[in-house]
């Protein structure tokens, strides 16, 4: 009996240890199961439907009947033979290039400016940037709409007062270039804080003594910037640029709301607006699915570099 009493705690401890090890082995999987189940339901299943829809004739009638008619690759060929698609693609690429260029350029300038300021101006400017950053997009659209309206918008008043021309009753939403220009202003304004503040944080990594040593050696500010600051900033610049490209290429809310649905035409489509109008608004879900796949494919290509870099960061385990 004595021996049984002795082995009892030993055995149970061993069993417990065994149980724990088994648990540890499967723990990470148990932890991600809920996420996988939810994502499979809300994203995986719709993605499966995206591909299915793209090969079907699927309109309002089919939506009600819950049943589409298979048409093979007709939707894709219809989109790829559509002049509007190609024009929209070119317009979106140019639009993205302009927006990203302005955002990154001005963002870098503001970040550099922040390093030159006295403490109180730096606090003032960065607080202002954070305030702008916090503004909801839909709110910003309404403010833009008010500031740029042709009757009593403050933009026309200020430009006229600055003697830049007579902007009295000037309609900023009359031509495509002007419409997209206003959208660009709105997007760049909204994106600048994130870019500027992130780059400013990056600039703090530039070693002071390295810069001072270069200055002692007689290097001009531009040389210091090109040979010391820029190489250190490079990874952050790359990440921010790729994020901006991805975001601006797929931007929807700003152009859709600022231009306004009544003024949206094939002549001023951006890719996302094209998809919304052709797929959802015209309830041609099959064709819309084909456009979605083409668009997702382009964005996936644009994202490769960014995702790769982030995965490298995600590899670390504490």
């Amino acid at each position, binding site marked *: 009996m004595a021996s049984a009493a002795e082995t009892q705690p030993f055995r149970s401890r061993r069993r417990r240890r065994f149980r724990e090890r088994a648990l*540890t082995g499967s723990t*990470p*999987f148990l932890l991600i199961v809920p996420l996988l189940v939810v994502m499979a*339901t809300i994203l995986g299943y*719709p993605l499966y439907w995206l591909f299915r829809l793209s090969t079907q004739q699927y309109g309002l009638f089919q939506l009600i009947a819950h049943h589409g008619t298979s048409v093979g690759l007709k939707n894709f060929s219809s989109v790829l033979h559509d002049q509007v698609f190609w024009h929209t693609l070119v317009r979106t690429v140019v639009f993205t290039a302009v927006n990203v260029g302005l955002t990154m350029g001005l963002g870098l300038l503001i970040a550099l400016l922040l390093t030159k300021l006295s403490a109180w101006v*730096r606090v*003032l400017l960065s607080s202002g940037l954070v305030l702008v*950053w916090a503004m909801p997009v839909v709110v910003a659209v309404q403010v833009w709409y008010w500031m740029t309206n042709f009757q009593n918008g403050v933009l026309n*008043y200020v430009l006229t007062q600055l003697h830049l021309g007579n902007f009295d009753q000037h309609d900023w939403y009359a031509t495509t270039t002007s419409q997209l220009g206003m959208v660009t202003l709105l997007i760049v304004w909204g994106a600048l804080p994130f870019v500027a503040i992130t780059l400013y944080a990056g600039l703090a*990594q530039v070693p002071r003594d390295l810069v001072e040593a270069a200055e002692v050696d007689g290097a001009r500010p531009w040389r210091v910037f090109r040979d010391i600051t820029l190489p250190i900033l490079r990874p952050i610049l790359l990440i921010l640029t790729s994020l901006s490209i991805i975001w601006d290429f797929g931007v929807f809310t700003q152009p859709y709301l600022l231009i306004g649905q009544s003024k949206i035409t094939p002549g001023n489509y951006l890719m996302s607006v094209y998809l919304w109008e052709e797929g959802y608004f015209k309830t041609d879900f099959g064709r819309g699915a084909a456009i979605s796949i083409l668009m997702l494919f382009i964005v996936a290509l644009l994202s490769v570099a960014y995702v790769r870099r982030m995965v490298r960061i995600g590899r670390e385990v504490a």
Partner: protein
Amino acid sequence: MKRAGWNAVGVAVFLVMVFPVFWMVSTAFKPDSQVISLTPTWIPLHPTLSHFTAALDKPYFWRDVLNSLIVVGVTVAASIVVALLAALALARYRFTGREVFIVLVIGIQMLPQIGLIIPLYVVLAQYHLVNTLTGVILTEMTFVLPFCVWTLRGFLVGLPKELEEAGLVDGSTRLGVFVKILLPLMAPGLVATSIFAFITVWNEYIFARLLLNDQRKQTLTIWLSYFSGTSRHTDWGALMAASTLTAIPVVVFFLLVQRKIAFGLTAGAVKA
């Protein structure tokens, strides 16, 4: 250039950047005569609250605030719980398929929302979830969930593993360590992530616009986007008052968490 010169440039940039926000608030408090005047009044010396009452009296304002709160509350609560578990797995364990999992978590956040509207609409229509808050909550989670996983992972990686190991040596179970040691340490990270998710969902436009056609079921963002309506004579004062009201909760919360979370998207590239 001298410091004073740079400071002047700094103040100028500040003024230009902040002007739209200032102009929104300023317009919201101005009497109508000053709002529509062709010569702008910069600062309302005789502020009025009439635009705010006009905005609040618009149909469905409070209803849509409630809708927004429901959508935000459920989405964030559900996402945080599910995401915390997955973040634990990512931050504390090595397991097969981990790499693929990370690619998915990051990759999904890069998808343009608009690319998913077609299948989401069709699938939700099949289950009669179009024009319901449930449908919106499900769609909002597609992006909020991966975001929460990634952000919480960042916070977890920052916590020292020694504390948990000490807890295990002292005889606590894994669950005990999680509840007693890890969870309290995670509290600030959980709050910050929840607030940021709150802001994202509160501001979200595309999915809510796609699914909610009934005015009584819309979120505040959609309510605001329809505010000026199709009429040629927009009530600018009320529109700016409504915009201010929509922005206030977001701005307050954002200022609270910005320092904690701003670098989530560039995590690792900037060592804050």
